């Protein structure tokens, strides 16, 4: 597909999400808001898994860094929403840089284990330092409205939540698309395909992997910070293993090789959990079976499958 058509397709998705807000019933309105926020997380995750070929099992670390960066500054220092977002992003960037400096020499299974270990250490720290973080009980925030261009935007207003999430989603999606098509993104793909060869084409691949991790971690942190600010809560569960497995699930379901794959996977997973948890309390069994089925019959994910069908027909 040509560059112009690819950008048009992505812009059309963003435009469609803007338009449907006027037709969605309240229940789905909230769901789509969450899906778009989580999709930012998925897009960030995919820069590492889909582009660079690095499987992280510890992305909760970055999501939580963003969420706690925002939540703690509001709770302890009375930051406003915008300043809290900035603090969350800075925290995620900082944690990404430190994590990157530790793990950038590793690939494959070693990378998976080290990221898992760091994320678990962070999770346990949020419990251990419960005097600051309030542990698994978490922090409930009450934020003042945002004054913007003379308008007063209340964060509890569903439309404010929806459109903030949409802006973040649009930025993350277009950023990832642009990155993928830039010379930098081409090197990340080359690393995924054949790292030894890439090195002998003159690329310091470890440095590229480091940069990919920092971008991925910061985007994941943006998702966490916004989630905390818009829904007014942060707790230890944000740093738990579940938040490391979810982005993996979203990405595999949707398709890691396609920019729209992770958002699609996020939406499907969200509704799958939503519907199956209405039927049974052991709803993760249904989610698990769906994942097994997808990897068996759609190894490139659903978006990958759609693209392949289009290419054939």
């Amino acid at each position, binding site marked *: 597909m040509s560059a112009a058509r690819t950008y048009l397709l992505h812009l059309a998705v963003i435009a469609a999400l803007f338009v449907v807000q006027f037709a969605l019933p309240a229940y789905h309105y909230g769901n789509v808001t969450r899906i778009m926020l989580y999709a930012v997380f998925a897009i960030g995750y995919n820069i590492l898994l889909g582009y660079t070929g690095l499987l992280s099992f510890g992305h909760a670390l970055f999501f939580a860094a963003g969420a706690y960066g925002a939540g703690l500054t509001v709770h302890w220092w009375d930051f406003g929403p915008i300043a809290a977002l900035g603090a969350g992003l800075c925290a995620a960037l900082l944690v990404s840089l430190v994590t990157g400096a530790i793990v950038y020499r590793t690939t494959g299974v070693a990378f998976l284990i080290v990221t898992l270990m760091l994320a678990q250490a962070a999770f346990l720290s949020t419990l251990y330092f419960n005097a600051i973080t309030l542990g698994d009980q978490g922090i409930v925030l009450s934020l003042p409205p945002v004054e913007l261009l003379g308008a007063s935007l209340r964060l509890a207003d569903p439309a404010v939540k929806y459109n903030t999430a949409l802006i973040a989603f649009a930025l993350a999606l277009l950023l990832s698309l642009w990155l993928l098509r830039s*010379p930098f993104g*081409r090197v990340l793909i*080359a690393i995924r395909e054949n790292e030894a*060869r890439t090195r*002998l*084409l003159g*690329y*310091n691949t470890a440095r590229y992997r480091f940069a990919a991790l920092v971008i991925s971690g910061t985007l994941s942190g943006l998702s966490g910070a916004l989630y905390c600010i818009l829904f007014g809560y942060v707790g230890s569960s944000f740093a738990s293993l579940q938040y490391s497995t979810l982005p993996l699930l979203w990405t595999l379901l949707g398709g890691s090789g396609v920019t729209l794959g992770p958002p699609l996977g996020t939406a499907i997973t969200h509704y799958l959990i939503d519907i199956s948890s209405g039927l049974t309390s052991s709803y993760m069994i249904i989610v698990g079976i769906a994942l097994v089925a997808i990897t068996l019959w759609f190894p490139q994910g659903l978006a990958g499958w759609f693209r392949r069908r289009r290419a054939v027909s």
Partner: protein
Amino acid sequence: MTLLQTRNLTRRFGGIRAVNDVSFALERGEIRGVIGPNGAGKTTLVGMICGRVLPSAGTVSFDGTDITRMQPWDRVAQGIVYTFQITSVFKRLTCRANVALAAQRRLTRKLRDRFALSPAMLEAAVDEALAAVGLGAEAERIAGELPYGHQRLLEIAMGLALKPALLILDEPTQGLAPGDIAPFCDLIRATAKSTTILFIEHNLKVVLELADKVTVMDQGAILAEGTPAEIERHPAVQQAYLGD
């Protein structure tokens, strides 16, 4: 003028000296062939030149700079380009994407360029390299679907797109159909007008025809060095390598 100089270069693997005390010089602009039986240390020697293998002792200097400990990617920036013995193109990417990776390395010296390189400039560089090896018509094909001989040519195109000062080819004609060898030799001769070439080769006919000078290696050391005519006549070479 000397482009590359190794001094007392040694590499041990356990108790084996794969390369033992090799001092070797390469003149700018020449085509140098390296021959020798399997295990003679040819690939280890060029591995130390391009940085894939670090020496146990000795030094390598390139264009007057000591590069003994330099990282392989920095050596590429200095102009040393290596193409693999076993074809190692990016099989799932198109030929254009393969060559673009090499071309953009040369074109993106500044950080800014890594995110916004002029597509027209990149495309021109890719087309030039593909045309040079005769793959201009295959640009949009997936590299892994090309016949093996064409994958080797693609590998050379990736080397050319880096505009190397020294192009190292490890057994370039291995696996080529007999009919592809003559055009390949023409390509190397044309490339040599702007580049110094160092190639390892088992096909003696190709070496004697193509090289300005030949280095014969055996058991990690240089056994003989000279023009193709001298090498053909050299008694030690006839005994150790050419045999009967």
